[in-house]
């Protein structure tokens, strides 16, 4: 029925709706899919991504949990071990500290510890990002924290099309997939919304390959690499640079694990310059890894020192006067590119 003929073949969706649509579609097809987490049933998820599921699928398959992340994420691993395909929500990624063992030592390692005989098909949805004044325990990205630890795939959609395709792929994947959705892209009116994240989405179900980056803008002078919210920062910077006659290529990583190293290498080999944009903490994170991949793979082609724009190594401050100037912005990226090309000359 999801593809009933009278319905249009595509619909403009927010990421929140795209996630809910993907979940509903998979739950219709596969009775083993269930959703668990805090406030995901009656409330439909604090960030709207489980809207309507309780009404359609009932409390057996759409379960509000106590505030017991260790227990329900651990339970998801057990559910997966007997043939279920649980999708669990960690409301804010900032809360990982109370349940990381169940994520990185259990869900992410059971496949290895069992020699592949006990895979853990589950999805962990978690919201990331700041910019709306929620301070240091509700505004982090922590991409690097999850991407560093083996055994889990990590995806970060920048728009509703990828969100639906990556969610369907994640649910069907035999492995734990951490699905990190950015609050600034979620399309909840009360959080503001990056317009570029709301796009046309096919009603039919489809998948986006986990592990493949996308070249979202072709260019020859410099490669700008973003993902999630920073993809949009990179795109806006590219527009500004175009006005200065700088032709930027923009890559959306989409997936941090597996990382599409070829996509990075192919682009940087051509442009010779690269700027990585990340709203997670600067040090020991995504920006360092991507730059290292670029130097490892394209050293001879590099015309300038790879640069990065990321959040400084301080807890996310509450006051907009303290937070906003440090969030990666198109201006930051433009400045970095100018310095880079200047330095490259």
């Amino acid at each position: 029925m999801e593809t009933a003929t009278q319905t249009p073949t595509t619909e403009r969706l927010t990421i929140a709706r795209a996630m809910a649509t993907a979940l509903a579609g998979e739950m219709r097809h596969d009775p083993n899919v269930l959703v668990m987490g805090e406030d995901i049933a009656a409330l439909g998820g604090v960030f709207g991504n489980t809207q309507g599921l309780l009404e359609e699928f009932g409390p057996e398959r759409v379960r509000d949990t106590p505030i017991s992340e260790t227990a329900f994420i651990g339970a998801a691993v057990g559910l997966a071990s007997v043939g279920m395909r649980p999708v669990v929500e960690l409301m804010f990624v900032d809360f990982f500290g109370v349940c990381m063992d169940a994520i990185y030592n259990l869900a992410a390692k059971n496949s290895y510890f069992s020699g592949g005989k006990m895979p853990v098909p589950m999805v962990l949805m978690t919201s990331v990002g700041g910019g709306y004044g929620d301070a240091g325990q509700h505004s982090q990205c922590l991409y690097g924290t999850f991407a560093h630890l083996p055994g889990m795939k990590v995806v970060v959609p920048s728009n509703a099309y990828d969100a639906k395709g990556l969610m369907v792929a994640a649910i069907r994947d035999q492995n734990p997939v951490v699905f990190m959705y950015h609050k600034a892209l979620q399309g909840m009116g009360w959080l503001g919304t990056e317009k570029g994240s709301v796009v046309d989405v096919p009603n039919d179900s489809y998948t986006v390959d986990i592990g493949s980056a996308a070249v979202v803008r072709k260019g020859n002078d410099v490669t700008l690499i973003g993902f999630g919210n920073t993809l949009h920062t990179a795109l806006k910077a590219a527009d500004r640079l175009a006005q200065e006659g700088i032709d930027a290529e923009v890559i959306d990583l989409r997936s941090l694990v597996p990382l599409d190293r070829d996509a990075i290498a192919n682009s940087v080999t051509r442009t010779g310059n690269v700027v990585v944009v990340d709203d997670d903490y600067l040090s020991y994170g995504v920006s360092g890894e991507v730059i290292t991949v670029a130097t490892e793979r394209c050293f001879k082609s590099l015309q300038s020192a790879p640069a990065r724009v990321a959040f400084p190594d301080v807890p996310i401050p509450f006051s907009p006067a303290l937070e906003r100037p440090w969030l990666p912005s198109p201006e930051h990226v433009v400045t970095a590119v100018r310095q880079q090309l200047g330095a490259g000359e």
Partner: protein
Amino acid sequence: MIRAPLQRLPLRSIDNYEGLITMQPDKTTQLWMLETMLVSRAYEDAIKAAYMEGKTPRFNMADGPIPGEMHLSSGQEPCAVGVCAHLSPADAVTATHRPHHIAIAKGVDLNAMTAEIFGKVSGLAGGRGGHMHLFDPTVNFCCSGIIAEGMGPALGAALGRQLRKEDGIAVAFIGEGAANQGAFHETLNLAAVWNVGVVFVIEDNAWGISVAKSASTAVPNNAERAAAYGIPGYHVAENDPDAIYATAREAIERARSGDGPSLIEIQTLRLEGHFLGDAEAYRPEAERESKDERDPIPRYITQLRGAGHLSDAEEAALRNSAAARVDAALAFARSAPLPLADDALTAVFA
């Protein structure tokens, strides 16, 4: 094989029960509790108004003088005053993401606290923390945005006082939803094993965001869980300052006299949504409508009137001074300067 015997609590003799009746607050304390509740309520109302500035017609959490989530404590004031009436600045208190009533009852500087909530340089942390992260070392108060995170620090503060032979115990406030978080269990067990003078107070407002206590908690009443640690558990069924005062008094005296931790659960009331902007569609009609008549402040005023402890004039005076203090705090916060961007980079390390 034997079924587990029922856990014995350190039982109190009947005369102690009698004694408890006489543990009522005196008039001065009652008026302090009322005044503090009035300040707290006036404060939440003022914060609510300020928070909504710039957020209408379109509600965007990022807009207005106070961005981010805002968890108000309206309706829960009795928990704060009934407990804090027994505390001095040397006693440590840890609170939650819903901290204003407790901060006020503990004596946190209202101006600096408000400036922090407005993200100003004169704030407690110069705007780095905001409403979920209020720290005032002068009265040993702090709070946090992670469920049950304050329990360990309260235990540690109380233990530290003991080891340093200093006066002071600690109280950790949590919500009923936090009683299902692992930290709750670990902390109560450790406090009991080490016999630490810390009191754990659960504000049971029946909801963890949209999840009802009955849907998340295997026992009707978390005070019963004290038995799992061999410590006294108290359940306060009324959202009433005097009842809370009497209960807290016993638990806090036990802590001060070196007899270890206690657990108190108070049935209280969340008058607002979980945070401002919460439509509360999940909350039963009847419950939402009965809110106002269950408001503890008018009820307490009626009590005091009945007991002849409060006159018209006294009430008016208290209301006026409360309003004045709150107005002053908001004026201070509004007029305070914003921090500089570079301030964000300092104070990560001391």
